[in-house]
């Protein structure tokens, strides 16, 4: 399994060809790229940051889970950090498998789950402003709930 967080451009072609083996009947690739707008606002670039050690650990866990649950042969999961321009790859997922069904399913599950649980954030710089992207809500089991505010000085 190839699990990486990188600061340079992702060489998708080399990764994809490196994943192919004789017993594979399918390689499913998800190439997540920076779009030129969000809800009509023109995007100039995105800045990605991560809780790096934890993100890597989470990504490794997801890849292992995918191999186990979907019975695919191998998974590559690569995420890039730093400033990315429109059209550049932020995340690359490659799933190699004997059969296409499992490859498609595992690939879809990996990107959907990565986006909910792997601690990576992005800040979007538009032509007319800057915002931290709204994240997807955490799965219920990760929620800590609103903290109790100490009464002293908090209430009027």
């Amino acid at each position, binding site marked *: 399994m190839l699990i990486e967080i990188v600061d340079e451009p992702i060489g998708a072609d080399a990764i994809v060809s490196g994943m192919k083996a004789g017993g594979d009947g399918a390689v499913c690739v998800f190439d997540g790229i920076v779009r030129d707008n969000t809800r009509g606002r023109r995007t100039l670039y995105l800045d990605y940051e991560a809780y790096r050690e934890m993100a890597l650990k989470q990504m490794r866990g997801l890849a292992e889970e995918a191999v186990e649950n979907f019975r695919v042969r191998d998974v590559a999961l690569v995420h890039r950090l730093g400033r990315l321009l429109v059209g550049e790859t932020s995340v690359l997922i490659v799933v190699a498998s004997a059969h296409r069904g499992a490859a498609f399913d595992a690939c879809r599950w990996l990107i959907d789950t990565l986006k909910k649980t792997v*601690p990576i954030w992005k800040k979007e710089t538009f032509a007319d402003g800057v915002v931290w992207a709204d994240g997807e809500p955490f799965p219920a089991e990760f929620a*800590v709930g609103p903290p109790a505010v100490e009464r002293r000085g*908090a209430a009027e």
Partner: protein
Amino acid sequence: MRVRVLYFGVLREMAGIADEAAELADGATVGDLLGLLRARTSNTGMGNETEEDLIERLWRSLAVAVNREYGSASIVLREGDEVALLPPVSGGHRTSEKC
């Protein structure tokens, strides 16, 4: 005891720091630490109403990792623990639209 608190994303920007040490009573939980940090931000008196709403929403939506594992408010902390405050994650390729 002392724990190390890490901030990420919008929380890091709001806190103005990436990490700090926090002094807690022995036996304190993640919930106790969050209460302490929350009280501090609500007492700044800074920001207008919209910002206060945003901060409130953020506090309700965050997750916490203790030593790089997602954890709940009831976890009892120990000397030297690394506690990370995580806003909802937004890695990958797009924001809230479904493809």
